[in-house]
Every structure is written in C-alpha cells, then in structure tokens.
C-alpha cells in the first residue's frame, strides 16, 4: 500500500500550515477529507441538487436515489441484514441520544440501571444522564484496569437484575483500548440486556460486521471516517426500530396526519424527520467507497504499524508517560510529559505544524479516575507516516528544551 499516493488524495496536505508541512495527528477528533468527498459535495450542489423523498420531478428522484445509495453502502460496509436498519443522524452523538431518548421513554423506570464504562466519551454519558433526572434511573460505570482496558469481568461485576441496557465504546479515544464487544454482547444477551456500541473510534479503524458483533445498536460518526461533518449513522436491529417510538417529529417521518391523530411512516423514514443533511449523506458514500478501495484490513495494518512505531519511539523517551497499556489497542497514543502541561505541549508542537489534541478529550470521568487533569493525544489516520511520528518526537524534544527538562 502506497501511503504517499493515498496522502495525495487529501488536498489539505497540499497547503502549508504556518509555513510547515502539516503533521496531522488528530484523526480521533476528526479526520481529513479526500478529494472525492469534497468534490462530491460541490458536484451535488452544482449539478444535482434537490430535496429528497418528497417531489416527483427528475432532480428529486435522482437525489433520492443517491441518498438511498449511501444507505445501501453503509449496510454493505457494516454487514447489516437490512438497509432499513441504517438511520441517518447528524452524528454519533445524535444516534446515541436517539436510543437513550426512545429506549428510555419506553423501557426505563425509576431504579433501573444503565451500564456504561469509565472510558466513555461524554456523548455516551450525558444522554443517559438526562434520564437520571426525568426517569430517576441509575448509571453504573464498569471500571478500567491498570492497563486502561475494560475486561469482560469488569462488565460482569456491574450487571445486576436492574440493568436494562449496556452502552459501551468500541475503542477508547484516550487509552486506545478495544473492548471485547462480542463477549460483552453474548453476556448481555444471555441476560436479555440489549447493547449499544459507541463506534465513533471503531468504525474508522476496525473491520465491522454487525452479524458477528450482534450488538443491538451501533453509533457511527461520518466525519471521523474521512466523511463530511453533520452526518452520522445509527445502526439498529430492525426489531428495535419497529418497536421504539419516533425520536423527532416533523415532515418526512409521518404516514397520515389528521386533527385527531397521527400515524408514523415506515422505516427508515420514521427516524429521519425534516430535511436531512442530504449533500453530506451523498458525499459520505464516497468516504465509504474510499475506505473500501484502500481496504479496511490495510487501514488496520497500517495504523497498527504506526502505533507500534510510535509506542516504541515515545516509550524510549524517559520524560514521557504513556496513558494506558491495553493489549488490544487502536491508533491512539495519549501521553504526558513531566513538568509540561498538555496545553503547552500542544501549542509548542503546533508551531512545527504538528496538530495534536490536549485536554480531557471529552472524557472527564476517565481523567478523574487516572488522576490527570489533562493529557496530550496523538491519533492516527490512513494518511499518517512514520515521518509524522519522527516529527512528533522531534517537536517533543523542542518542548522539553523550552521548559528546561
């Protein structure tokens, strides 16, 4: 696989950032976009634009077909049984909110428990927290071990007769831990508990097969998969989408509207109220095709190589502490430097064109547990090279120099 050629497909790297080549190590936050995705948005708006699903004119029919083609591509990409199990949302956050809201409405009562983990991003905690207030539910957190992983035992320890749903990340955006989803689902299903997987970091980096994972819900973020912002996917088993109430009301999601009552539309319209992010959905198809062309196995392999190289280089540096040491780890390295606050690291690295993230990465629960107010994080995408990691390492040295370490 020729990374240089793949990198050339991303126009952002043609430009200098403050006179430096861009070393983009913030893909866990959001990935850069290949030209095919950017062009698709331009082409759709310039040549093919119309709203979908409503009018019968030529452009409306063509736009509807393009929109539905993305649904088919997502179905293929994650191996869902039915294309109607794919619901478009504005992001993974909305996908999780959709489940928390509708499942909560129908199935959660006072005293019921929702089981999360200490690794969760705020987007897989706050939506459930709303139900603490409205439904008086309890939220439990499966605890991480010293490596920053969630084991099947950690989940088992927190399941009680009150546990009504388990909602866990596929891949931690801080420690990089990949969770044993298949085992968690098997365990949960043996107790009739459904499982939601926050796939924000899973979908861009791991091969997905909904039949194999067998989870009930899987939330996907488009912009972390080389796709546009404003688009996400909720995969849900059809039985749930048939069973749960609609999330938002509006045009497009209804069957019949009368003064005396309303009946709702069939899937997938039931969950797609109002005009959706049409251009973004259509361009998201190009991201999926791009990832299929590169091959998810190649992506996994490349990012694993980068990870091992990065862990090796940074691991040799005595001033650096790497956060977490999971056996099964994705392309994320969070670290601290003794005596330099992560925000200062990020500012100094930025001066060399090295873009990392610093802060709590929307995981305050985890940082509290780790007793770290903040960490610095380098995360990888398909366009990264070993040179990027060498530059990271060199800029860290500069950082130490400034702070006299």
């Amino acid at each position: 696989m020729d990374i240089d050629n793949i990198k050339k497909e991303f126009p952002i790297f043609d430009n200098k950032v403050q006179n430096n080549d861009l070393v983009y190590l913030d893909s866990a936050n959001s990935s850069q976009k290949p030209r095919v995705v950017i062009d698709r948005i331009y082409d759709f708006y310039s040549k093919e634009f119309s709203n979908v699903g409503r009018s019968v004119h030529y452009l409306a029919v063509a736009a509807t077909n393009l929109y539905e083609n993305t649904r088919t591509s997502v179905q293929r990409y994650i191996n869902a049984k039915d294309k109607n199990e794919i619901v478009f949302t504005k992001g993974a956050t909305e996908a999780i909110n959709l489940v928390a809201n509708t499942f909560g409405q129908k199935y959660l009562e006072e005293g019921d428990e929702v089981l999360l983990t200490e690794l969760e991003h705020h987007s897989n905690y706050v939506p459930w927290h709303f139900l603490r207030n409205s439904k008086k539910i309890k939220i439990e957190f499966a605890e991480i071990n010293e490596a920053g992983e969630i084991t099947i035992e950690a989940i088992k320890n927190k399941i009680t007769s009150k546990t009504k749903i388990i909602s866990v990340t596929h891949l931690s955006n801080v420690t990089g831990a990949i969770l044993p989803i298949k085992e968690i689902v098997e365990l949960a299903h043996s107790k009739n508990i459904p499982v939601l997987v926050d796939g924000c970091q899973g979908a861009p980096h791991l091969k997905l097969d909904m039949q194999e994972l067998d989870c009930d819900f899987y939330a996907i973020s488009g912009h972390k998969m080389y796709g546009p912002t404003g688009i996400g996917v909720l995969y849900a088993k059809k039985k749930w989408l048939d069973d749960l109430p609609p999330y938002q009301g509006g045009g497009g999601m209804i069957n019949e509207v009368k003064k005396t009552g309303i009946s709702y539309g069939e899937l997938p319209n039931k969950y797609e109220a109002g005009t959706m992010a049409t251009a973004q959905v259509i361009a998201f198809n190009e991201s999926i095709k791009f990832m299929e062309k590169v091959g998810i196995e190649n992506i996994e392999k490349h990012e694993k190589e980068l990870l091992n190289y990065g862990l090796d280089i940074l691991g040799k540096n005595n001033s650096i502490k790497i956060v977490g040491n999971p056996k099964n780890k994705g392309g994320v390295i969070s670290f601290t430097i003794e005596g330099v606050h992560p925000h200062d690291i990020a500012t100094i690295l930025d001066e060399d064109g090295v873009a990392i993230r610093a802060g709590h990465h929307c995981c305050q629960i985890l940082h509290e547990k780790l007793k770290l107010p903040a960490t610095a994080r380098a995360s990888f995408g398909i366009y990264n090279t070993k040179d990027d990691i060498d530059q990271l390492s060199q800029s860290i040295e500069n950082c130490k120099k400034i702070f006299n370490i």
Partner: protein
Amino acid sequence: MDLKELYQEIILDHGKNPRNLRKTENFNKDAKGHNPLCGDNVHVYLKLNENKKVEDISFEGHGCAISMASASIMTDLVKGKEEAEVKEIVNDFLDMIKEKEELQNKILNEDEKTKLMCLSGVKQYPMRVKCATLSWHTLTSAIDDFQNIVNTES
C-alpha cells in the same frame, strides 16, 4: 508567531514555581473558576481588611504554564492594593489581552507593568487567551461576591 514571546523566562518561572499557591487563612472573599474546554480549575482567596485593602491573596488550582503564571503574577501585583484599584488593574489587563497595545492604569509601576506585559504574547494564540484570563475573571467574581463558578465559556 514566536514561541519565545509566549514562553518568556518569567512565565516559565512563575508557571513552574507559582507564587501564592496556597489557601489564605481567614479569607473573606473567594471564587472558583473553570475552563470546561481544557479542564483547568482555579480557586482564588482574598482577605480584604476594613479599609478594603487586599491584605492577602492566594490561589489553588491546576493548569498550563500560562494559566499558572498568570494567576501567580496577578496575586503578586494586586497584594496591598485597594479594592477599587484591583478592579481597575483587572479591567486594564483584560483590555490589554483583548485589544489594547499597552496597559493604561496608573496604579502599577513600570516594573510591575513590564512583568504583566510578559503575558501579552498570548494575544497571538487566541485559543490560549482563556488560559491567561481565567484567574483574573475569577478574582473579579470573588470581589463582587458572585456565587456562581466562573466559566470561560459563558
């Protein structure tokens, strides 16, 4: 942009060894500040005497070199000043960080102004301005007896 301007020796020194990083005994005013984007926290304690003069000021918290240095320099400069003077210094500093070239107040002497101007490098780093201003907003809130936690996002 120039990193040397941001991370001047005096900033690094105050960042590493912050002055007045403790809790004032018998404080009569205090406030908490929080930057939700980065998780920085600061708690400012004030002891005003009967003449509304700052008898002691201190802070607790954690944050980057810029935020720690800013809080440290702030506490150094307002100690011994009267409440109205403190407010004038705070507003002058915030104006300088936002837009003005120089400090305008006549309360601080030239040495003190030079020290404070070391923080002006942050102007070139818009994302870091909040690091430099958090403790100052928190000081205002302590003086004004606000009950709410200062939040850089509101």
